[in-house]
């Protein structure tokens, strides 16, 4: 995957406690961690933005050992459920996590490689990476990604962002998240430097690190930029920081415009992008030269990809400004999903075509604009959440319920009183989202249409 020795003298990593690691040293560490494993072993990588976590990730990828990226900060019971379902032979995890899942066979910094009791089993040779389907409802569904998917997408990103070895990207997103992972991949591909930190964007140590290590780029989801705007980020004195990228949901158009304008004034770039984990993950970007003119657009397909609008029969709509289903085609479209360990044997089911589930149109210049969603889902802090699946969860507590939402806020309507705290805590536990993501509202009855189906439009209007 990565030819680390090509850049052996460059800094691959600078950590927030001041450690510098060259590409040659990263290569040696990565090889050491992955040494014991063979390509038929599934590994669960419980991630944080630390050097050990990264070195394991790189080692497994480079040795073509199939691995799943999971959030090490997630509730251990959720991780255990996934272990029971997918039976990984190894876990790469922070030593302080007590999962009692097996025997430690290697120590590296604060991480350990744990051998579980599960023996290896057949895995499709093309499969390299498994990612969670963006923070949904605690579902054990994983996205199956091949090396070709990953590599082609990282190369496209390098191409359209113009990433070179002089870049110094600060890890403002977690590495288990497809967007955070893509920042890592695209930089390691070109011998650039990753400034590794888990410190929150809202606290001073993050910015001290950004200044001291002269970060050249930062990545964020919509709420990151809402916070940065509130912090008057564009007035901070950060002369080295040249590129801001935004993905993981739709930033309010006025806020995007404001960032684009200020970026222009300060000689920086603000790049709006669009993707899904299923596309490993990037599908489009808004070239900065066009950004001000088309600030509400998700831009054009990434190099190597194609995007079109389809009617209800799946036929391409050539005419501009007509809404339809947004379809993406490219070498980065994932192989499919997995819901059990047996699915890891499956081959490519998508054949390079992804139905995004978004409703969009294009303009006469070929720029795309998202206008709605086909499925009932919202993005919560960059993570997709299916409202129907959430409703099923709430039914475990009370059957009379309906979920609607806007990005970053889900409202659960129920008819029974006194359940607010219980529902919220249950959903937090299941989804891993913060309590703040949920509102519970009590109605006399859940409105239905003549057909007897829940009238979501009416509920949506009431929030």
């Amino acid at each position: 995957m990565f030819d680390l020795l090509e850049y052996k003298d460059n800094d691959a990593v600078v950590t927030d406690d001041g450690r510098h690691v060259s590409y040659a040293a990263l290569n040696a560490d990565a090889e050491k961690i992955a040494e014991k494993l063979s390509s038929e072993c599934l590994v669960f990588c419980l991630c944080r933005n630390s050097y050990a976590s990264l070195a394991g990730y790189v080692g497994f990828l480079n040795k073509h050992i199939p691995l799943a990226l999971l959030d090490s900060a997630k509730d251990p019971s959720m991780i255990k459920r996934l272990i029971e379902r997918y039976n990984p032979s190894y876990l790469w995890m922070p030593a302080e996590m007590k999962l009692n899942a097996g025997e430690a066979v290697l120590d590296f910094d604060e991480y350990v490689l744990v051998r579980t009791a599960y023996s290896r089993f057949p895995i499709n040779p093309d499969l390299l990476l498994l990612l969670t389907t963006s923070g949904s409802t605690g579902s054990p569904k994983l996205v199956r990604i091949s090396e070709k998917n990953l590599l082609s997408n990282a190369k496209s990103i390098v191409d359209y962002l113009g990433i070179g070895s002089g870049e110094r990207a600060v890890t403002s997103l977690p590495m288990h998240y497809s967007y955070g992972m893509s920042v890592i991949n695209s930089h390691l591909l070109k011998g650039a430097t990753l400034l590794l930190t888990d410190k929150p964007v809202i606290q001073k140590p993050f910015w001290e690190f950004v200044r001291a290590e002269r970060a050249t780029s930062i990545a964020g989801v919509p709420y990151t930029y809402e916070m940065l705007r509130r912090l008057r980020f564009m007035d901070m004195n950060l002369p080295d920081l040249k590129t801001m990228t935004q993905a993981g949901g739709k930033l309010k158009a006025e806020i995007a415009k404001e960032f684009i304008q200020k970026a222009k004034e300060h000689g920086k770039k603000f790049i709006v992008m669009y993707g899904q984990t299923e596309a490993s993950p990037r599908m489009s970007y808004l070239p900065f030269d066009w950004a001000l003119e088309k600030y509400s657009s998700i831009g054009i397909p990434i190099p190597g990809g194609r995007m079109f609008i389809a009617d209800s029969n799946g036929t391409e709509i050539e005419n501009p400004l007509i809404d339809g289903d947004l379809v993406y085609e490219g070498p980065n479209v994932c192989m499919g999903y997995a819901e059990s360990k047996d699915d890891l044997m499956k081959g490519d089911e998508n054949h390079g075509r992804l139905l995004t589930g978004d409703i969009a149109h294009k303009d006469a210049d070929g720029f795309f604009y998202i206008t709605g969603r086909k499925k009932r889902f919202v993005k919560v802090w960059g993570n997709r959440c299916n409202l129907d699946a959430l409703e099923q969860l709430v039914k475990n507590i009370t059957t009379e319920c309906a979920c609607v939402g806007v990005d970053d806020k889900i409202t659960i309507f129920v008819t029974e009183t006194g359940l607010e705290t219980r529902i919220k805590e249950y959903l937090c536990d299941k989804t891993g989202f913060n309590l703040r993501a949920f509102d519970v509202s009590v109605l006399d009855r859940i409105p239905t249409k003549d057909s007897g189906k829940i009238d979501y439009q009416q509920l949506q209007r009431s929030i």
Partner: protein
Amino acid sequence: MTNLEKYNQAFIDNFNVSADKLSGLQYQGTELWDSVGHMTLVAALEDAFNIMMETDDIIDFSSYEKGKEILSTKYNVKF
């Protein structure tokens, strides 16, 4: 309400914590004090004391005690 009461109330309302939990409370020390919660806390304090906090003070605001120190030394809020 005294300034201390106003200050405490902003924490209690935003983070859904009881008054006895405030002393020693740090950023990320309770579930709702995450990055989103931090911004709503700052907005609530700005409203309560009719001030506009500087960026450096917002990101330096790392605990209940640190916030008090910032408000008293830089924004003339007397506790």
